[in-house]
């Protein structure tokens, strides 16, 4: 559906340093036992030095040594350096060592691959990438890289996270930033020392962080983003300069003002577009009608394409070029929509945001470029309207889980600030299902299911019905329903408009051998379509907090008619679970050849301490258990 644009600069940078004279070099036997536990790779050393020479000249030198313990760590062995017109790679050195620390070989410049970083969503960018890999496969082994990079702006100071991944331990790491004494460096350490050691010399100030002996961290279910778990130092400038534009990140307002200035006066519409706007909205009385009409016009006539060169990551194409070409990226389409609204007399603001399902958190206490997307906010006297301008299908005002419930930077001439996008609560995200089914004496079932999906629970379905033709939708249904052998004989979707969108689904299914018939008994799972299948393991003590991304509620009512002459031998027990994570109830009754199964599950969005995990696992496992319970009927 929507796509990202890239305004984050990826740090993968570095430094030539003196080789240790000692031989052997970082042999594997020197790794402390505690760092080998759960580790596919061990970062032996990471020394990163940043020298800020001026607002438009930053040098990064990084020297790192990593031991790859087994195939699972192989992804840590490669070197990936992104670059573009701001970034040039000055030198790259690399050496490969075997398990005992004997040198196997050195990197040759001819082995470095230089590729375009164009992805499928981008028509073109000037982003490129250099890659190197020794592709060694005799484990364990050690690689050493030294890289030097220069960047022509202070706008993209890197985030330092030397323990690069889960299941990767860290022996020793050091970050130093050498800046002019009058350069106002902003920083924030997380999961490590919060403030650096500061030394001053003549006109320079040097900031130093050190981390050592960090054991590997396992990825856990329901855990947050990696930067919330592993040691990370965030860096940012107060003032920066990029392509001749100067700005400040010292607070959100000044950062927003920078964006405002950068994109000022790019909202001039050609006359014929202005005429179109007036033709569309002049007869309408309310702002809401105008916004909806213009949004529908945008969706119908303009499409999303990613295009970015140089400062294009931050600066939009102007409205006139979007009008001429009929396409734009998220900035350009949001800016264009803003211009359309302005022509209709409605003020709106671009909001820079970090898009992605589950990407709910930014560091609000650390103003910096943490975003990858732009949406539009139309403030209203009573209610604010939010518009996702890269989508051709979303209803006006609905953002979906792509950008819901998170802080974004509202860009304004005078008053830029962080604002929160709408939170879709439990009652917005519903799945209400009613099933009427009949099972014959061979165990074959005819199932009619009517389901209403709303809010975030309809997001996937929304994309599916808008991206697949009827035949592909049917193919999807024939593949992914949880019946052993079945056919979908009829299906229909109807969208119900509203501020929170809903979709009604009607399905007719023939499920062969849905019930197992063994002589005189029939085995039936009365929960036909809404089963939780996952089972959670709690063997080890939980280390990271538990996150549940959004709230929702599912209700199921199932009626199953069975052949005459049977009586229940076993019915699933009635289940009632009430926890801080949610509530669950199910019950099954049998009366007059008819089974009735009623299930309700509520799930609560939230963040819970690590110690809550066993309780969560028990709760979820109990749901899984209850969902698969069977009815046994026996011939009278």
């Amino acid at each position, binding site marked *: 559906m929507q796509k990202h644009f890239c305004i984050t600069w990826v740090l993968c940078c570095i430094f030539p340093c003196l080789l240790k004279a000692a031989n052997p070099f970082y042999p594997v036997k020197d790794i402390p036992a505690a760092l080998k536990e759960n580790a596919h790779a061990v970062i032996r050393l990471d020394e990163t030095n940043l020298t800020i020479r001026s607002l438009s000249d930053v040098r990064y030198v990084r020297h790192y040594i990593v031991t790859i313990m087994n195939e699972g760590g192989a992804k840590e062995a490669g070197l990936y350096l992104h670059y573009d017109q701001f970034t040039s790679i000055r030198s790259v050195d690399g050496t490969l060592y075997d398990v005992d620390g004997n040198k196997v070989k050195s990197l040759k410049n001819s082995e470095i691959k230089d590729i375009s970083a164009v992805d499928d969503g981008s028509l073109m960018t000037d982003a490129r990438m250099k890659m190197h890999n020794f592709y060694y496969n005799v484990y364990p082994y050690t690689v050493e890289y030294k890289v030097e990079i220069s960047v022509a702006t202070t706008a993209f100071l890197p985030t330092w996270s030397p323990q690069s991944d889960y299941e990767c331990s860290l022996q020793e790491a050091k970050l130093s930033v050498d800046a002019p004494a009058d350069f106002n460096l902003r920083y924030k350490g997380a999961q490590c020392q919060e403030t650096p050691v500061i030394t001053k010399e003549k006109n320079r100030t040097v900031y130093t962080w050190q981390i050592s002996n960090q054991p590997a961290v396992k990825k856990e279910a329901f855990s947050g983003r990696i930067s919330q778990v592993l040691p990370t130092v965030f860096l940012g400038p107060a003032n920066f300069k990029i392509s001749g534009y100067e700005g400040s990140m010292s607070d959100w307002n000044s950062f927003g003002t920078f964006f405002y200035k950068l994109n000022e006066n790019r909202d001039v519409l050609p006359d014929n577009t202005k005429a179109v706007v007036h033709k569309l909205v002049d007869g309408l009385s309310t702002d809401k009608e105008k916004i909806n009409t213009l949004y529908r016009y945008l969706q119908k006539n303009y499409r999303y394409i990613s295009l970015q060169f140089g400062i294009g990551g931050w600066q939009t194409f102007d409205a006139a070029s979007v009008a001429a070409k009929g396409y734009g990226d998220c900035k350009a389409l949001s800016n264009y929509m803003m211009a359309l609204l302005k022509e209709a007399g409605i003020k709106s603001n671009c909001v820079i945001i970090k898009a992605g399902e589950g990407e709910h958190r930014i560091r609000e206490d650390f103003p910096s470029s943490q975003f990858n997307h732009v949406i539009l906010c139309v403030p209203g006297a009573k209610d604010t309207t939010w518009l996702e301008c890269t989508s051709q299908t979303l209803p006006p005002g609905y953002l979906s889980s792509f950008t819901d419930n998170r802080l974004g930077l509202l860009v304004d001439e005078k008053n830029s600030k962080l604002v929160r996008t709408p939170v879709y609560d439990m009652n917005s995200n519903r799945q209400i299902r009613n099933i009427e089914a009949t099972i014959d004496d061979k165990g074959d079932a005819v199932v009619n299911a009517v389901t209403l999906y709303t809010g975030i629970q309809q997001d996937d379905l929304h994309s599916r019905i808008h991206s697949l033709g009827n035949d592909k939708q049917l193919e999807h249904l024939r593949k992914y329903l949880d019946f052993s052998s079945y056919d979908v004989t009829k299906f229909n979707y109807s969208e119900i408009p509203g501020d929170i969108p809903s979709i009604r689904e009607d399905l007719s299914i023939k499920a062969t051998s849905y019930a*197992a018939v063994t002589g005189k008994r029939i085995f039936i799972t009365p929960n036909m379509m809404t089963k939780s299948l996952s089972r959670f393991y709690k063997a080890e003590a939980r280390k990271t907090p538990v996150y549940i991304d959004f709230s929702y509620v599912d209700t199921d009512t199932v009626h199953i008619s069975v052949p005459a002459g049977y009586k229940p031998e076993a019915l699933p027990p009635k289940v009632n679970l009430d926890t801080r994570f949610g509530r669950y109830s199910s019950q099954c009754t049998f009366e007059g050849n008819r089974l009735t199964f009623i299930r309700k599950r509520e799930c609560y969005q939230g963040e819970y301490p690590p110690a809550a995990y066993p309780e969560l696992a028990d709760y979820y496992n109990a749901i899984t258990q209850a969902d698969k319970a069977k009815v046994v009927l026996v011939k009278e």
Partner: protein
Amino acid sequence: MKFGKVSKEEFGMNKFRNDTGAHAIVLTEIGSSSFDSEGDWFKLVYKVHRRILIVDKNGYDEANMVITLYRGGEQEEKLLNLKASTYNLENGQVVETKMDGKSVFSEKIDKEYVNKRFTMPAVKEGSIIEYSYTVHSPFYQRLRPWNFQGEYPRLWSEYQVAIPEYFDYVQIQQGFESFAVKKSEIVRQTFSFVDRGASAGASSSTFTATPTVGKFTWASQDVPAIHPEKFITTTRNYVNRIEFQLSGITLPNTPRSSKQSTWGELMKNLMEDKDMGKYLTEPNYFLESMVNSLVSNTSSNEEKARKIYDWVRDNITKVGDDQIWTSQSLKTTFNSKKGNITDINILLGAMLIKAGLNAEAIVLSTRDHGYVFQHYPIYSRFNYTIIGLTLDDRYVTLDASDPLMGFGRLPIDCYNGGARKVNAFGDQLMLSADSIFEQRTTSVSILGMENGKMKGMRSRKSGYFESLALREKIKEEGKDKYLESLNKANNGLEINNLEFDGLDSLDKQLIESCNFEYAVDNPDIIYFTPMMDEAYKKNPFIAMERKFPVEMPYVSDEVFTLNWAIPQGYEVDELPKSARATLNGNDGYFEYILQQSDGYIQFRFRLQLKKANFLPEEYATLREFFDLVVKKQAEQIVLKKKK
């Protein structure tokens, strides 16, 4: 079709037969390849003119174009005369928006390929897009193929090819759809050349030639879209397509310079090619000390071969795309310890030969790359190199590119019909899916019950390819995680004491054994599915209908046995009925046999598929056969507490 002349009627062609899912429809596409003079010789001229109706938003990808150009040595292909427009119907009028020439971007892929990318302006639902361009190519072997079929339906797809008598090409056609037009004629055509003289300062002269030219036209009408199905090698085998391979060039008054013709010649050329077989005939002195150290203290040829195979497999890493050409010198592969599939296996071959063994290269096309036409010897059909080795009285095939592959085994993707030995005869080697026998045997015994939990042991010998996948998994995530994933499977089994036999014996099947516990819900009455987690949860043949043949990777045989001591104090209340079935006579066999004797329940299940490929007509029976399997597997044994 004239550029820019789009009629209103064309906007109404947004329905294609019963295909309601088409996001775009190719209204007309016309391509041509011909020869024209350039300087003192010919160039290839490829032209495309295409008009596409964008039905809905999901068809917008068609508006983003990529044209790939090739560069080799001093010469390169050139893109010319690119024109692109979008047409929209506005107030009953066709409105054209032209693409700005600046909207074409160049993207260098590598030393040899450049992509030209562009996107169409003003595209909306219901737009028609049109573009045309010309590519000039000095590379005669790049006479471009033409697909008459693709992701979207095509109303008219036409390709014209004109070839002067000096050039011989082999033409290869495939596909399920028929041509509406298929014609050829011979004409004479005059070409003018300029000879600039052999040296600088020499005067140039012009000359002409009037060869006969073979002109061919193929066109298809109303071609449906092609969609992939499950259990298929690749839709490339079924798409309507025509392709060309240069087989020879005959200059006036000179003998024909053959590019190839027979399998023998083709493979002999490959054998002598400096980027392929030639490495196997060179002295390769640099390999000597390594080979000597590997084969010292070996007593048989097989032992020598195994030592060398293991070394190459364990030390050389596969990188890059599959192709039958080496990407670098043999010495570089040996020293850098990485290379593409051909680099690796040619190194293996060279080392085997260095050790005095009788090895040769074999080229093949992997399943996802499509079939090889046995009547048309062309290189482009191949993408993979392996090694054939004669060991005393047997012939083994080797592939050292997968770190977990056993000696004498090949990846499943290699079994795609006729491979060719790279020798002077170009012998065919059949690698068919029907020749691989994937056999899995599981035996379970349940001997006791304590505190409401049944306790048992399970031993399973996986088929070879399943073993390979399992080894891969364990190598990547470790045994503990694998055990964890078994215990997360939500099937009521708690597994412990997991052991593997043969984890490091890479050419053998892997045996996995464990103890398990199974909690009984209600101690008064036990319901038990005898195959536990080995039952099919779903019929693997999901789709109701089938257009293409079913192509499975192997023939298979699964056997499951259970021996269950009826717990003290219980008696059998009900046993599922035994059953046997066959599929289409002898294509498949299924048995499900349960019996009770001396306080034990004995169960045996067997499922055999005796052939790998089924015709579309056989699909319905195949699906029903599996319905029966799934149904029987879901049945339950019922034990009751004695009163």
